[in-house]
């Protein structure tokens, strides 16, 4: 091929320019530390890098969300722990109150401490995290609990998305522990009411020294707790007892023995027979037993009128109405033999009265004393028991009975408090499990973040060692080319012609 000077000059310029472009590219990569500086450097790699950057940013955000969820749950957990402590303390106090021998003074102290606990519960219910009420559902800027336990929040969930599609509820449903009939506030409040109520539980005087045997076949249900207490003693033998199967709130009328040793027919076909130990029975001795088949009956003592304490009515049947209305009942009509054959019933605290006639009265005078029964509605039947002990204690118009369905007492409160503690423990366990899940999620996100950073670095970052080597090589080549070109371009025949 014929080579002319212009070709050499052109080629030289092109080659030097290409070398210089290469030096520029390597220099760019070295100074930015990135091998991807423009999409055209590696289109697929850049798309990959964009994806990795977005994923890395999202990963950081999920870590932040996880931490936020973690903080919420820690705050919730801490408050639940405080609640559990308060309820446990209340339960301890309730046990003390139920077994209290010293009556009034101690009970008042207990009641005032329960009052304090109640305030503490409201305070815990109003705890905040970062300015948000944690037990207010999603109404985080509304104080959820009033001083009287009223709830102003909602049941909305505070959700944190801690990973794609992984939603963590960081608060608890306040219904689970706070609000409702069996919530913390109501339970403690009920305990407080019972503590302040009159009608002290009677403690046994001869505990452990006398025994009682049960005979007969239970016609009622299982699981009903009976309390039996001695109410009369004659010549070292028990002459009368009373029993209660609602934890001592109501007691049966005095039951007289059917023979010796004293045997007392209790309700539902159950009889109690007492055997004396070394110590004679005392009035106020108390027994407790639990039936083994279903029964639903309670006997109520008169609470007003001339014959208070001397007559009772027994309620039976299953309550099918709603709520827990208080019934006031008073005799309205007596037959010729002083049997109650007509009563008046009020469920609105005596404002209105309705008249009922005994279902077993047909207008003819009944033999005295005869139990007359009344249909109260809502599945309840009332049996009016006439006193057989003393004929002079006849039923008189104006006698009043009162009962509330269902009746509650401190021992029932204990069960309710246990229920509340269980509910709190369940919530705490759930919070704990969720916190563990979030913690492990954070660990996982961190490890993913590291992997993503590595991947991004592999895609995006320049290999400095290789680049520096390439740069040195390129510079050497460029300098060599300059020197060689400078020499080769110079001479022509002209230089040698004389």
């Amino acid at each position, binding site marked *: *091929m*014929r*080579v*002319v*000077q*212009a*070709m050499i000059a*052109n*080629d030289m310029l*092109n080659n030097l320019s290409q070398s210089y472009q290469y030096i520029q590219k390597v220099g760019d990569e070295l100074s930015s530390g*990135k091998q*991807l500086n*423009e*999409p*055209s*450097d*590696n*289109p*697929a790699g*850049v*798309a990959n*890098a*964009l*994806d990795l*950057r*977005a994923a890395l*940013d*999202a990963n*950081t*955000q*999920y870590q*932040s*969300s996880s931490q*936020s*969820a973690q903080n919420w749950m820690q705050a919730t957990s801490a408050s639940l722990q405080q609640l559990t402590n308060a309820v446990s303390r209340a339960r301890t106090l309730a046990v003390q109150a139920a077994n209290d021998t010293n009556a009034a003074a101690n009970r008042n102290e207990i009641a005032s401490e329960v009052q304090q606990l109640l305030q503490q519960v409201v305070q815990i219910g109003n705890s905040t995290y*970062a*300015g*948000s*009420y944690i037990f*207010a*559902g*999603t*109404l*985080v*800027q*509304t104080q959820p609990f009033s001083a009287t336990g009223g709830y102003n929040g*909602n049941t*909305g969930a*505070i*959700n*944190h*998305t801690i990973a*794609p599609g992984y*939603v963590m509820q960081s608060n608890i449903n306040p219904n689970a522990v706070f609000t409702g009939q069996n919530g913390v506030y109501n339970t403690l409040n009920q305990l407080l009411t019972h503590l302040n109520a009159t009608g002290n539980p009677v403690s046994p005087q001869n505990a452990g020294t006398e025994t009682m045997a049960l005979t007969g076949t239970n016609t009622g249900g299982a699981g009903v707790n009976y309390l039996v207490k001695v109410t009369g003693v004659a010549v070292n033998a028990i002459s009368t007892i009373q029993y209660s199967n609602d934890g001592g709130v109501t007691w049966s009328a005095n039951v007289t023995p059917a023979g010796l040793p004293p045997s007392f027919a209790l309700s539902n076909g159950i009889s109690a027979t007492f055997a004396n130990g070394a110590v004679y029975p005392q009035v106020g001795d108390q027994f407790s037993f639990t039936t083994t088949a279903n029964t639903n009956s309670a006997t109520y003592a008169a609470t007003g009128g001339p014959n208070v304490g001397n007559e009772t009515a027994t309620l039976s049947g299953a309550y099918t109405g709603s709520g827990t209305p208080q019934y006031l009942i008073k005799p309205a009509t007596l037959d010729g033999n002083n049997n109650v054959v007509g009563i008046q019933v009020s469920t609105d605290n005596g404002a209105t009265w309705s008249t009922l006639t005994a279902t077993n009265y047909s207008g003819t005078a009944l033999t005295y004393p005869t139990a007359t029964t009344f249909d109260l509605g809502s599945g309840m039947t009332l049996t009016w028991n006439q006193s057989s002990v003393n004929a002079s204690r006849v039923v008189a118009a104006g006698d009043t009975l009162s009962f509330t369905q269902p009746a509650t007492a401190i021992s029932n409160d204990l069960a309710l408090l246990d229920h509340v503690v269980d509910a709190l423990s369940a919530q705490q366990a759930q919070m704990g499990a969720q916190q563990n899940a979030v913690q492990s999620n954070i660990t996982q996100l961190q490890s993913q973040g590291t992997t993503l950073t590595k991947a991004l670095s592999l895609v*995006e970052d320049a290999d400095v060692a290789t680049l520096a080597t390439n740069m040195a090589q390129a510079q050497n080549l460029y300098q060599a080319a300059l020197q060689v070109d400078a020499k080769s371009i110079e001479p*022509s*025949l*002209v230089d040698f*012609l004389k």
Partner: protein
Amino acid sequence: MSSIFMALNTANSGLQADQAAIETIDHNVSNANTSGYSQQTAHLVASPAYTVPSLLRAAGPGQIGTGVTVQNVMRARDSLLDGQYRYQNQLAGQWSTLNTQYTQVQGILQEPSTTGLNAKLTAFWNDWQQVADDPTNIGARAGLQQAAIALTTTFNNDAQQLTEAQQTADNAVTNAVNTINNLTSQIANLNGQIRSVIATGQQPNDLLDQRDLLIDQLSNTVPIIYTAQPDGTVTINLATQVPNSTTLSIASPSESPLVAATTTNTLTYATTGGTPAYTSPTYADGNPLVDPVAHPGQPLIGGQLGAALQMRDTILGGATGLITQLNNIVKQVVQDVNTLHDSASAYDLNGNNNMPFFNITGGASGTAPAIASVTAANVVVNAPIVNSPTAIAASATQGAVGDGSVAQSIANVASQKGAGGDPLPNITIQQGYENMIAALGASVQQAQNANQSQGTVMNSLTSQRLSLSGVSLDEQMTMLVQFQHSYAASARVVTAIDSILDTIVNHMGLGN
């Protein structure tokens, strides 16, 4: 019988021819670096012989040479190589223009970086999630507000700069048309001069070189098909690349050529209308450069002009252009966010609902803009949200300020794929943007590679041309020495004949 004076003439012809050759060499050396110059050679031939008459026969003893004459001075040129060069040159013009403009466009989008749209989009979605985590935190809301403003500003800037790039391409179109007109008028002028020189039987080497150089320049601007005419003129037609082949086709067969002898078909341009208005180049009669009958639906492909049109109308503008792609991303973002935010069950901190998050410049703040009217250039964050971050709706229940479910739903948009009829169907917004960047990167890479390889092809062709047409100083010097000696020899012959004549005139005859 020949005269001794004839020998003197023969020697003289040698002197003349050598001088002509030396002058040609001189011309070559002078133009060694003139672009487009082809080395010239004086072709010497022996002049017609003189038949020496004979006493014995008519044919004589033989012919005696009468010396040398310069037959012609020719330039070294290969028209086939010129054809290859000009075909490749329009490709070189195309790829060089595309490469330059692509580099500008690529710079606009600033990817991959922490300042590009990708980072802004990611920050936007993440800030929604942050608001979802803590909807009553004004700091998180302000962060989202600023991220949204940064996002719309980036969209606006990108759109503006892409439009500016489109205008740059439009300027390139105008410049190319002016360049074509300038070159064609010069070529037509040279056609006239060349034709008149050739008519006199001369070879206008330098004019031909000049015209070839202009045709080279023209072929860089636009693809051409040219035909040499017997009278020495050249006819040039505007051509276009035939898609998926390596041939050119006359762009508009019904139009008169760009250059025919001394007349030109001057190009002009009309405006495309619309805002901004662009240049639509046409022939003098107003017809489009590419005949829609001969090349249905085809744009002009090739040369700087074709590249500028392609950049302006297809790569940046048009239904699949970058501006449309960017608009589709904006539309998808606005549609997804507004659908969730401008809802009866999306409440802000003040308990208000039904508030669009994004709007367009000049849109009523209470009404979500029609998606068709949203573009990257006009998208803004709705005024109430710019005024106060409390207007960001995060809650699905009025007054339930701790509820971040709406914010979470919006944050989740980042990982949701568009529905069938959406601006970005069946892909996430992130994927849509990645596809756009990757496709742009691939196109730029292709342009860079094509530009580089086209440069190599052009270098090779230039070398081949120079190898034939270039002036080699060594060669010229050698020839100079050669003709110098030849000239000296001829001069010596004259001296010898002078001596002979001296002998004959002064030393022969009566006097001696």
